[in-house]
């Protein structure tokens, strides 16, 4: 049996009976360990995601057991599978409905770059339509890789303000015409 580990406390001053830190650090820590993913699964990577959610790999261990099937309550948009060009506007619409802070994870070769589908009908990577935070390579990736992607999103989620106000994020939003 491994020991139960408690999450690391953020920086702050500590004394008997009190702990002082900034609110955004506490909120960031809470966010980090309770990300609600919105699975946008269109093909085989979605099957890998199902394995990731199931008991063997158990994404619940990382605080993401609560899937949100409404974009309005979701934190992470997980795009898993081939996105046809016709699906592009739909995906963008889903992204636009998500509230800030929001993150996007492109799972698998198709969502990242179009994969083997270099053809007239397939979007060559979802970053042609929406900004992407984490790319998970693989065709399809193993559940361990998807968990690794979630952990990287968690790392970003500790400081959502930093990312939201970054030049790069604003540039990408402007590029894709998302306000």
């Amino acid at each position, binding site marked *: 049996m491994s020991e139960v580990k408690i999450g690391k406390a953020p920086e702050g001053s500590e004394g008997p009976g009190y702990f002082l830190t900034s609110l955004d650090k506490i909120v960031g820590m809470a966010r980090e360990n309770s990300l609600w993913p919105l699975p946008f699964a269109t093909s085989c990577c979605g099957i890998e995601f199902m394995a990731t959610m199931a008991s063997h790999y158990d994404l619940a261990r990382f605080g993401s057991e609560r899937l949100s099937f409404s974009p309005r309550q979701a934190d992470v948009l997980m795009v898993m599978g081939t996105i046809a060009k*016709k699906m592009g506007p739909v995906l963008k619409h889903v992204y636009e409905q998500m509230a800030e802070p929001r993150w996007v994870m492109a799972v698998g070769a198709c969502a990242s770059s179009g994969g083997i589908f270099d053809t007239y*009908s397939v979007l*060559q990577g979802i970053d042609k339509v929406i900004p992407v935070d984490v790319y998970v390579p693989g065709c399809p990736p193993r559940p361990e890789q998807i968990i690794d992607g979630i952990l990287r999103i968690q790392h970003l989620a500790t400081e959502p303000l930093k990312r939201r106000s970054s030049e790069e994020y604003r540039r990408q939003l402007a590029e894709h015409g998302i306000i």
Partner: protein
Amino acid sequence: MEEVTDKIPEEQIESRLQDPLVEKLQSQFGEDIYNAYETYGIKTVVVNHERIFDVMKFLKETPEFNFHFLTDECGIHYPDNKGQELGVVYHLHNMIQNIRLRVETFFPSDNPVINSMTPLWPAANWMERETYDFYGIIFEGHPDLKRILNMDDMDYFPMLKQYPLEDGTREDKNDKMFGR
């Protein structure tokens, strides 16, 4: 078991099919039945595209033919067949006697207009929309001829051979990435 090869033997294509049904069809439509042959066990007739609706109506409604089921309808593009670049292929099925028939018709690509089969088979509706979507073939008499699978704002017909299959916006397929 018969050996299946990619190539259809020449003599099989060229031989005029000795078949009572095909002979009846030829006696009805004469020179408008351009050719008749059998490949892979399916009887095939090539029909004048201007008479295609009459031929199909005859095949469906004449009791001895009884081809009541339209299995498939699709387009095809042979850019080298001058004047007959585009084609439509119909697969018919007589379910009572279990007979299948393939009907082919070809027409020039600069005037790709042909009668719609929707008055005969409602199933032709979506299949003709798909054929229009990919080959740009106009089906006259179709109730709602618009794209079905591709994006509405696509400005070409992607299955025509002059267009590339690849997307063209791909960034990771250049020589630098593959070390060439």
